[in-house]
């Protein structure tokens, strides 16, 4: 199962983490989402057919501060 790690510099509190996790639950391809507040990164475990671009777009639409930068 692939893992994708992205950096979202706009993350600043646990509210953000919950928000991102909440969005991610709507993607059935995502099996695990881990938000690291200190490094402001999100690690996603997902099936290969996961559409990162769509997910990123949705995250970015939540708050203008959220900009998704893929790390791996």
């Amino acid at each position, binding site marked *: 199962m692939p893992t994708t790690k992205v950096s979202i510099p706009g993350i*600043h509190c646990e*509210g953000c983490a919950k928000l991102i996790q909440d*969005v991610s639950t709507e993607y059935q391809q995502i099996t695990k989402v881990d938000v690291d507040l*200190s490094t402001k990164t999100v690690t996603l475990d997902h099936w290969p057919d996961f559409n990162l671009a769509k997910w990123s777009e949705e995250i970015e639409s939540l708050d203008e*501060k959220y900009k998704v930068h893929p790390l791996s």
Partner: protein
Amino acid sequence: MASQATLSITGMHCASCSALITRKLKKTAGVEEANVNYGANKARVRFDPAQVNEQGLIAAVKAAGYGAVVSDEKDREAEKKRRLDEIRSYQRKFWIGLILSLPMLAFMVLSFLPQSQIHEVVMPYMGIVSLILATPVQFWLGYGFYRGMWSSLKMGTFNMDSLIAIGTSTAYFYSLWNFINHFLTEGTVIGEMHDLYFEVAALLITFVLLGKWLEAQAKGKTSEAIQKLMGLQAKTARVLRNGQTMDIPIEDVQAGDIVIVRPGEKIPVDGTVIKGLSSVDESMLTGESIPVEKKEGDRVFGATMNGHGSIEFRAEKVGSETALAQIIRFVEEAQGSKAPIQAFADWISSWFVPAVIGIAILTFAIWMFIGAGLTFSLLAFVSVIVIACPCAMGLATPTSIMVATGKGAEHGILIRGGEPLEAANKIGVMVFDKTGTLSKGKPEVTNIVALEGSQDNILKIAASLEQGSEHPLAESIVKHAKDKKVSLCTVEFFCAIPGHGVEGVIEGKKYFLGNRKLMQKIGVSELAAEEQMQTLENEGKTAMLLADEKHIIGIVAVADTLKETSKEAVDQLKRMGIEVYMITGDNKRTAHALARQTGITNVLAEVLPEDKANEVKKLQSTGKKVAMVGDGINDSPALAQADLGIAMGSGTDIAMETGGIVLVKNDLRDVVTAIKLSKATVGKIKQNMFFALFFNVIGIPIAARAFMHWGIILRPELAGLAMAFSSVSVVTNSLLLKGFHPLKKNWLSDLAPVFMAIGFTALFLGFAKLSSAAIEDMPTGQTLPDISRHASNLSSPLTRNADGTVVIKLETREVVSEIAPGTTYQYWTYNGTVPGPFLRVQEGDTVEVQLTHAAEGEEVSQDMSFDLVPTALADGGETEDAHTDGGGAHAAEGHATHSIDLHAVTGPGGGSVLTQVKDGETKIFRFKANRSGVYVYHCASPHVPTHIANGMYGLIVVEPKEGLEPVDKEFYVMQGELYTSGALGKKGHQKFSKEKLLAENPEYFIFNGRTGALAGSGALRANVGERIRLYVGVGGSVPSNFHVIGAVFDKVYPEGAITSPPLRNVQTTIVPAGGSAVVEFTVDVPGKYLLVDHSLTRSIDRGALGELIVEGPRNPELFSAVNPDPNHTHADLAMWVEGRKIDLSAGKYMLDEESADSEKETNPHLHDGNGLVIHRHKAGQSIGEFLKAIDINATNQCVTLDDGTSLCNEGSKRWQMFINGTEQPLDPAYVFRDLDQILLTYGATGEQVAEHLQSLSDDACLYSQTCPERGTPPVENCVADPTVPCVAP
């Protein structure tokens, strides 16, 4: 039809919370639209009532982890009230906290003044009062912190609340634990208690509440802008439905309704005029104060003000779609998206708090591991938590902001809270609105062009015409005429032509004043004026034509002019490196004309109100912090969007509410001042943050007692005081901002951090030192005076023959000293030591006893004097060190009086009835020493046993006239008991326990005042062969079974009866309570003898153990170890040099023996080639230790002999060591095994080594051949000495 609901949301702490709630609401079935405003704590939801109700919405919000209640528009008032309540609640809590904490603060101060009388009176009640005061602070006022910690724990994080909750709880419960402990051991809640830190917890909570109060005050004002905007709306609308007009609530207006607006009414919603003509003041949208003509087909906007006409229009945009609603939304969004700048607080909660807790736990664990004891470790733990609690940090920001806002107000700059101040510091771009900001906002007459006649005449006619007009431009013309003192004429037949101008008759002649359209209408050619008109219009001016019925006679130009100070402000900003922009809804021509005058090159013209915010956003997207300066309602979205909104005081309320900073004087130079103030304030906040943390960070290792080794530790209450000081310093530092002046440097404020850093470091070290000095449980307590009187500190035998008068001066003193390392006690003493001075008089002497109850500062220089030999101290004792103690409060401690009862006295009370002395008193009595003997003296003031138990006893010897038999050494030993509140071994300061005294249940038995007083440096010392006399007394109430382990008392004068014949050869003698014994013996064998009470636990466990160290030659005849091998004369150790046996009996390697061999050196010390043989029968000692005992030092390289010569490995010469014939490297650490034979040889040749080995083997052979049962020799070629007989073991 969709319903709309507004929910009040609680628990949101940042913008992402609002995003989360929005998502949750939108996902709820039936919700059509959801809009959550973080700043206003509101959620506006449109939903289908068929699918979901308000309760469902609330449940959805709650599921996301937040609170919600239904709120309607009326709730705004409730909301406001709630905010006010919050402020009041914090205010009230703070004051209550302060009132409750102040007495504890006073206690804290008092505890540093232990000598004060108030301290003595208050001290016993401090514990219980503190508990009563601190409990409500901890749990009622501090409840919010527990709740905050709980909610953050649920999220798995720490925040400031957690730190405060943990810190205060630790201090509180630790204190409570000590309090209960006190209650359980003492059975009372009153009395002196130790390790209570209630005040630390209470003060901490109070300080933080102050911070919260100040914060709430600042925050409470932020959301008023939106409320004001809402208030702009018309409440009702008059609509035409089904041919009828009706007034309906504005919410019910639907698109398509025909709305009727009468003169002076507000236009309720947006729409298009279908009937009527009027001018409408749209300043709230456009910022332009000139009303706009509205006729059929023109658009009108909600909340704008209708002028003189009546219009009907078709509603097109209602509810949330109106221009006003959009502005409100912009403001809401801009406010909500501005997450508070909390990087530092985030850092605190995510890193600092767990780190501190970790360090505290580590501290505790390490001290426990080292074995410092539970109390000590726990104290260190508490200290770390308490000192780390950055309570000053809660004050760092609010106080600076308070002062800065106050200072700003002085300069006409209103600052709304800390955020704008912080933002102003970082501004890179400054955007100015044009109208009303850079410009005066009111048109003024700038040019008068006379085509016919004089300028004055043109002005006179124009002003006269405009007298009757309410048009804003008219006003400026009339004002100009008045300023120029032009008298106006009366006008007849005045008529205003909307959209064109005015007409009227002056002195019979008709004039027209208006725009081009008016000229066209009346058919007057404007050609003559066209050129000048265009020039004026290019300058951004509004030109009006004045004409009579045939010609244009003049032009009056009106323009919005620049404020005098605008250019200076722009220049200053540019000098500060800030980019300056101008933004306006006005046309480019006007805009550029004005920009040129100010020197602004970046002009954004013809910008719609909602786009102003977008322009700001665009500038922000370049990464710069943008400030917006404006005054109109149309500016408010941009003000809110900008990182910093600055509103003009002359501007609309809305702008002022939206702006973070309001410039009351409308002087743009104040923008510069605000930025300077902001920079000063932010700098101050950073300093404060630094100091708030500085204390904690340097305090942590000290509190953890990491520097204890260097005598630097910090008690928690001092940690608490340091904390209070850090708060005070932060507040003081903030107050220095008061010296701010926009044009001057605030030196004091700038230099303050340097002074603070130096001052506080010194203060801290001072505190630490104070802590170290006063600490009860510090393992090294050299700072306390030693209570014990040295056993050899006694007066010499008397040599005089004559009787005389001996004057004895005694002073009673209270001395805090150590019973045992780390355990202190307040002794009551005569002259500062236990036992008191050894008094020595002669039978027949008259003794005058002067007893003084020491008041503060007094010192008695001599214990005793004899008038016949006045220079000699009758007591050979040293002059005592000055030790002073409180005089005034002795009564409270139970020793209002002291006295002396000398058992040598024959008379009532032994003198005590004559010597009851109060504080500072001296009493004298005399007695005749008529009975020789050794007697106890003690204090006999009520309660007598207590006085004695605390150390007030000593011996007086009345020598017989013939004197005492001379001895070599005399010693003074007194046994006593101590009844401490804490059990044996408990560290810290111990109180006297009367209960234990009554139960005759002492914790300590002591010789000369404390445990170990007569050991180590206090040991009794004598030389072999000396005769020793011990004066042994018992001051306490338990008789002693006195014995010296290793000695037999060849004479004992029991019960001090020195004139009676002695008992002979006594091993243990009983010394009665309040009595004495004199024992004498000779020490013949060197070594250590032990002085004990042979009720041995008293000595082994409870302290009454002394040492007598005797030095001198060994006396094997009298005392020696028994050789297990009788074949050997050399016990278990033997040494030979060059085959010569060395006499070890003197404990020394004897090198001065003559050598029998004349060819060899006379001193058979080690030299090249010879060797040293050691033989040992018993295992255990190392070669090095053995050699050391006979004054030979050996290292791996060198062997240094007692004569100072040293032989080291050098070139080919080296030390060789053979153990049982096998060579090994020289190793002083080699531990003998049984029967080891060792050869040490230096620089020996091969032959010499063989020879030495042979001599070594001789000894081994010696017994192996004569006593074959001992085994085979370790080396070959044994040569036996048949003269040594073998005796079977």
